[in-house]
């Protein structure tokens, strides 16, 4: 199953709705980069509200795709990380430093506009 990537004005919108296995995560990485290239979007919001756990592999895939997107000149905001997920990530020692975050999709889009506007 592929994760749908939606375009909204100059942004891409991704909502991950089910538990990620390794293949899906890697496929997503590839799909997102292609979509960025295709659409010329300059911002991405990835919503993780429905994700109830992230291990170091998925965190690495996410971190990588954010760095790759940055290289392509695109800002990425991660939204809706659940408290339990945040705690496990921190305890694992994964800080996802330099990643933009927001409470929910709405605030994520606001933040993205702010970042892009400046």
């Amino acid at each position: 199953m592929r994760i749908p990537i939606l375009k909204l004005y100059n942004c891409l919108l991704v909502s991950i709705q089910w538990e990620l296995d390794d293949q899906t995560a890697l496929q997503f990485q590839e799909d997102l980069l292609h979509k960025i290239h295709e659409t010329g979007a300059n911002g991405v919001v990835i919503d993780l509200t429905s994700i109830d756990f992230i291990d170091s592999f998925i965190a690495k895939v996410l971190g990588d795709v954010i760095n790759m997107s940055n290289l392509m000149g695109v800002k990425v905001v991660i939204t809706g990380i659940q408290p339990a997920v945040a705690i496990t990530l921190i305890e694992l020692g994964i800080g996802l430093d330099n990643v933009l975050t927001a409470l929910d999709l709405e605030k994520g889009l606001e933040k993205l506009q702010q970042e892009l506007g400046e």
Partner: protein
Amino acid sequence: MSIQSCVTIINEWDIVAARQLGRNVAKELGFGIVDQARITTAISELARNIFLYAGKGQICIDKLNEGGKVGLAINATDNGPGISDIRQVMEDGFSTSGGLGAGLPGVKRLMDQFDIESSPGDGTKIKATKWLR
């Protein structure tokens, strides 16, 4: 007293199966959402280690009840190459796979107890336990 259920790890999908099993057991035992996430993540890390380094192994989930204390133990066993320097793999940031290097020390922080037994050629045995607060 303990009740055990196991998943054999051969391919990537088994990692998903192992963590789903762990999550269900954790839920059943009454662990909160945060502890469920901790346990699921720990299982995912251990299962992935088996898949990456040993190729084949087993994840077993024990329900524990010791003197009124309820807990869950993850047993990860494999007959892979083993670990030559345990101290090194327990250091933060050490990784041979190009990952984040959060694996084993991360698991140790997520769980309450962590035991590892391994020698080169003999495979690896890890037991990580979480107690219900």
